[in-house]
């Protein structure tokens, strides 16, 4: 099946107007040596056949509806209000292009302006862009911006930043002349002494995550201050839902704040698409990568919105652009705007409290199970690192839990072998009492 509307008669008429007798005459500019000899693909299907094929394909997947999930690690499953799907699936939101023709895109542009405002409020920063691909690339872009803004060549990144994010940064900066130094963690948080020792006036930026990869709350304010003393920029990678209760980056004078915001209204979807928040101080306005929507007026003095400061972007500056990005995650940006507007300050606070409560209840119950201990005696939000002391590996435990329909915490040995058999357990508000009971029972049996 395809989506072309042409009848044979229309094709005939069109060929006539073009002035050729067959379609093949349109291809004379293409040398025969490169013409497709074979085009081997499965045959097309009708809609009912597609549905059937995909149902069969999807069948082996165990979704978060069917299993009790305690997985986090940078991807958080949160409630999605019905209106988010309902509104965002309107064709007028889903199928427009990038809003370069402002007059034909006032809906999208106003929404982006609202999104930028909401992000500034959430992160307590001066200016936010229309979003980047995901949290990881946003952190990488922040690193690039800091290097260019300071003209310095060294980056300090905490070991407690998500390992995938650190890998993405390494990829982005490979081949450049900058050096990346990793600051170790001690007892679950960044070692401030080690950070202080590494800080010199050649440091462009310090990158830390809140809460960090172990779920622990980091001393962001002291770290920020230390960084500023040598004239470096402090970059914070944060978790949006936690900001209902936890101090936002603006409060500890972060220069750049980034976040993965897929959890604000979009499903985990096997890790993508994401929604990378990017916010900074007013003084760095012209260095921001990505799209910006601004408020202005039209010729009749009515309020109107338009993309602005586009001279930073690829379609104008080309090789001198602040980045190469020409996407924002428009559709997820919309969903997050609806989500944040609908929850409001009270809803966001309540959502954060529900996560805090659930996670602490579960962790306390798990600590009572012999052979399970909390790895770090530190405050946490909705994720914590647990260590197994009964001789079983995280993998073995998870295999057993799986039989009970439970996704146990993410084993951390692969990235942090010094922790022994430890796993990262996340509890969001989507976890039910019954699921927790089932988990405790299953763990006790082990």
């Amino acid at each position, binding site marked *: 099946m395809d989506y072309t509307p042409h009848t044979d008669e229309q094709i005939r008429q069109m060929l006539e107007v073009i002035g050729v007798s067959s379609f093949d005459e349109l291809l004379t500019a293409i040398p025969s040596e490169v013409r497709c000899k074979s085009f081997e693909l499965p045959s097309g299907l009708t809609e009912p056949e597609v549905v059937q094929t995909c149902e069969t394909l999807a069948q082996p997947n165990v979704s978060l509806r069917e299993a009790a999930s305690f997985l986090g690690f940078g991807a958080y499953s949160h409630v999605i209000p019905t209106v988010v799907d309902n509104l965002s699936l309107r064709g007028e939101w889903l199928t427009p292009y990038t809003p370069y023709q402002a007059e034909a895109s006032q809906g999208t542009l106003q929404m982006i302006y609202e999104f930028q405002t909401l992000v500034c409020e959430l992160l307590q920063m001066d200016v936010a862009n229309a979003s980047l691909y995901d949290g990881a690339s946003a952190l990488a872009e922040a690193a690039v911006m800091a290097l260019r803004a300071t003209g310095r060549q060294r980056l300090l990144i905490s070991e407690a930043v998500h390992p995938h994010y650190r890998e993405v940064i390494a990829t982005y900066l490979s081949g450049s002349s900058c050096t990346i130094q990793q600051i170790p963690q001690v007892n679950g948080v960044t070692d401030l002494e080690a950070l202080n020792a590494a800080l010199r006036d050649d440091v462009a930026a310090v990158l830390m995550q809140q809460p960090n990869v172990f779920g622990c709350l980091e001393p962001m304010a002291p770290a920020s201050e230390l960084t500023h003393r040598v004239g470096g920029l402090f970059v914070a990678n944060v978790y949006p839902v936690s900001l209902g209760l936890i101090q936002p980056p603006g409060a500890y004078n972060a220069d750049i704040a980034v976040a993965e915001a897929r959890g604000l209204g979009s499903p985990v979807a096997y890790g993508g698409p994401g929604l990378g928040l990017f916010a900074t101080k007013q003084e760095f306005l*012209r260095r921001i990568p990505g799209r910006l929507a601004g408020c202005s007026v039209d010729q009749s003095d009515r309020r109107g919105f338009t993309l602005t400061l*586009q*001279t930073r972007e690829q379609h*104008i*500056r080309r090789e*001198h652009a602040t980045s190469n990005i020409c996407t924002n995650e428009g559709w997820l940006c919309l969903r997050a705007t609806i989500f944040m507007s609908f929850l409001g300050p009270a809803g966001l606070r309540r959502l954060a409290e529900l996560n805090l409560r659930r996670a602490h209840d579960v962790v306390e119950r798990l600590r009572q199970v012999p052979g399970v201990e909390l790895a770090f005696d530190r405050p946490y939000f909705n994720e914590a690192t647990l260590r197994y002391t009964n001789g079983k590996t995280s993998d073995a435990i998870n295999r057993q839990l799986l039989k009970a329909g439970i996704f146990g915490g993410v084993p951390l040995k692969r990235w942090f072998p010094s922790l022994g058999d430890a796993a990262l357990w996340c509890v969001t508000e989507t976890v039910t009492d019954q699921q927790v009971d089932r988990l405790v029972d299953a763990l006790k049996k082990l």
Partner: protein
Amino acid sequence: MTIPEHLRYTKTHEWARQDEGEIVVGITAHAQEELRDVVYVELPAAGKTVKQGDPIAVVESVKAAFDIYAPISGTVARNNAALQKTPQLVNQDCYGNGWFFAIRPSQPEELNALLTADGYAALLKTTAH
């Protein structure tokens, strides 16, 4: 099309004016007209060493950004801070208040190699479309 007689010009549409020990630089009427409304100017910091032909400033309209090149070598003595708040000065008074920066020349003879007003006028004629 105004091309003041007492100034020197570059092929890249900058003008240069001798002002005591410094060379003041801006962009020509032709350039600002092509650009249309100037929205932002990025200026070099005072003290910066520059070589003739280096791109050392950027002028932006809504739709385009262009490099501005040092017409001579030397050190940037000062720049026109007024352009930060009022970039439209470049459109309104490109040879006067819309100046960009001043350079203390290290090789003053470079100024003589620049185009005269007649030379610049001829250049505009050949590239006219």
